[in-house]
């Protein structure tokens, strides 16, 4: 057992933090207000290889593995959850689906420019009538000569309006069910029959785009079947498993920023003749935050280690997501409470963080879905099959 980070990870964290402090923090408020991540500026500034952190160098990434990616997402989300959402949708799931399921040619053609940050990815699974129940998707793909014709609508797609490349899940054989009957496709935004619908007006992560994608007789060449025909559901679920760990890491970073800020504010804010850091109510809030953050940190990096060492991690990944999102919920709530009215004002980052946080309990699998995943893993060895 060795719980210390190797030196190269420590260096990497320092590099990412420097980048975030210099290039992202000054823009974080504006990103929320203007509903836009100045993507090109940030990507160009990002000498750290922002868009392909977990992928091997031969695919344009920096080969930091899941552990490095968690460090990276932790640091980004300390400061700008909108940017974390954009990078997460691009990397953790959009590009990840191609990395996990794609052929070598597809990886060279699509993953390399994505990982290099030359193109932006999205992950198109959710539909108006298929949210938590991903197997209920209705988007259809029908063979037509050398192409597939896609018809359907995807909703709540992060990066939807800006993505160049989308991993899209569609039904290819309704008689076979999700395993076998669902195929993933790589769709380029220029493909005929594809269009971006309306963008959502959200509570938080307002700098990230969330859009509807419309496929109307969208023609996709058969080479763009992502990996194996009929294996789409499995590829997508594996991508989501992966995404959950780095989401937990993002929550860890956000929660840690809350703790730090709460301590500083408690030292500064004077009430009743001294700093509120002298009040037991504040001590206990801060002690609870710190305890949960340490538990989350251990969970996240142990799970990342499981990925990097080739062990099964699906149950632990769901734990990272549900625990992480609920820890940051409690942390930002206490942080706002400690800051009092200031925390409720859009003049200060706490207000934005409070709005931003709430999505983490919902997107990429709600807390309820995570609990179902965890329970499924626990009951399966007991011979009990559970359904949602």
């Amino acid at each position, binding site marked *: 057992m060795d719980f210390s980070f190797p030196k190269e990870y420590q260096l990497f964290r320092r590099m990412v933090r420097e980048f975030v402090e210099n290039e992202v923090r000054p823009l974080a408020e504006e990103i929320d207000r203007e509903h836009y991540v100045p993507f090109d500026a940030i990507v160009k500034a990002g000498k750290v290889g922002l868009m392909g952190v977990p992928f091997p160098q031969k695919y344009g990434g920096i080969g930091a593995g899941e552990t490095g990616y968690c460090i990276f997402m932790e640091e980004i989300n300390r400061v700008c959850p909108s940017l974390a959402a954009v990078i997460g949708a691009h990397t953790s799931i959009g590009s990840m689906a191609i990395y996990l399921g794609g052929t070598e040619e597809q990886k060279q053609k699509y993953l390399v420019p994505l990982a290099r940050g030359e193109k932006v990815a999205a992950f198109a699974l959710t539909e108006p009538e298929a*949210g938590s129940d991903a197997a209920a998707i209705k988007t259809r793909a029908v063979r037509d000569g050398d192409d597939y014709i896609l018809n359907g609508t995807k909703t709540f797609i992060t990066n939807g309006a800006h993505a160049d490349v989308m991993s899209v899940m569609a039904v290819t054989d309704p008689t076979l069910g999700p395993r076998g009957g669902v195929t993933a496709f790589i769709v380029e935004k220029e493909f005929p029959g594809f269009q971006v619908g309306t963008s959502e007006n959200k509570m938080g992560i307002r700098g990230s785009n969330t859009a509807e994608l419309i496929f109307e007789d969208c023609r996709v060449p058969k080479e763009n079947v992502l990996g194996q025909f009929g294996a789409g559901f499995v590829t997508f679920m594996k991508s989501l498993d992966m995404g959950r760990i780095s989401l937990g890491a993002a929550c860890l970073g956000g929660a840690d920023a809350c703790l730090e800020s709460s301590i500083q504010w408690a030292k500064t804010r*004077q009430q009743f003749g001294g700093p509120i850091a002298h009040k037991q109510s504040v001590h206990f809030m801060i002690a609870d935050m710190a305890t949960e953050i340490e538990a989350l940190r251990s969970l996240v990096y142990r799970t990342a280690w499981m990925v990097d060492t080739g062990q099964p991690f699906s149950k632990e990944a769901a734990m990272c997501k549900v625990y992480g999102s609920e820890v940051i919920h409690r942390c930002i709530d206490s942080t706002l409470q400690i800051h009092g009215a200031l925390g*409720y*004002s859009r003049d200060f980052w706490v207000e934005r963080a409070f709005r931003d946080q709430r999505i983490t309990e919902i997107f990429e699998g709600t807390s309820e879905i995570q609990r179902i995943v965890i329970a499924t893993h626990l009951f399966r060895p007991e011979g009990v099959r559970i359904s949602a």
Partner: protein
Amino acid sequence: MDFALTEEQRMFQKMFRDFVANEIAPLAEEIDDQEKLPPAVLDKAAGQGFLGALLPEEFEGAALDTISYCLLLEELGKACTSTAVAVSVHNGLAAKTILDNGTGDQKGKCLPPMALGEKIGSFALTEPSAGSDVTALETRARHDGEDYVLNGCKTWVSNGEIADVFLVFAATNSGAGDHGISAFIVERDTPGFKVGYREPTMGLRGLTCNTLYLDDCRLPAANLLGQEGEGLKIAAKALDFACLSLSAICLGGAQAALEAGVQFSIEHVEFGGPIALKQAIQNFIADTAAEIESLRYLVYHTAWLADQGDGYTREASIAKLIGSEVAMRAANKMLQVHGGFGYMREYAIERLYRDFRALRIMQGTSEMQRFVIARDILREKGIQIEP
């Protein structure tokens, strides 16, 4: 014991419900979006007598009992938190405080136009360095001949942008500690008085919270409310009533959240049926409903106590503490029921979630309510505690 509303209270309740459904609910989204109350909202509320809800008929008021008044706030709270808080600040913190403490002249001059909605009321206590600790306020009122001259600044003053009559708390004798603070009636157009910075709030966006500047603001002695040095006593009594009022708004708000969540759970299908069929969703609904029913009788009982004429400080703080936390949990759980839809501005639950977060802070944070409750309990055991 009789838990039933009187016939009159039921009649009022129906009237409030109809008014709110017709006049307020359709505007709630716009109020949040535009970040202001359309003038028509307060005009119509005034037309119904709601802006003189607590005032006797001699001042053009509707003379509601406190339970009926809470029913009004509950109904307003169901539709629009911003409107409900604006109305409660006007009625409970401003008009009622003048009624309880004012001279005949002050009441005769201020209250009828307030009841008719010609003048809106506000209450200015908080300062940059005096939030939970109101004794730390730095606004000074010095004697100058027959007048007082006020200097200082107030923050987070609800109704700041729309009010005409402000109750301003200032130190008349800075050496006297808690007993050195006095209350003043300040009209908006008084020289030296200025309404400034509007706080950009997360929610409650229809409520205007402003900074007030008092710069050699000269007031005749006739504008002193109550006796000199009575300011904190006046404020404490007003805040008891404000706590009760907010708890009624929380009760309405929590119900609106529950209703929205229940409706969504019936309409939204996942895994082959409405999500209302899932146990996890049912638990959210049941827990929220259980909390709302506990809150309901806490609010009504506290309102009843307020009408009995004895002190009800502990109960008001309990109602505010529980109310604000129940409302927030309700919004949180029902947002979760909505899934991704709950995060979108077009669904009311998104607004409720932002709105309700203010309630655990404004008019006494949860921490201050806990202090008040514990202080009251421990005092009976002979133990004095400090915040």
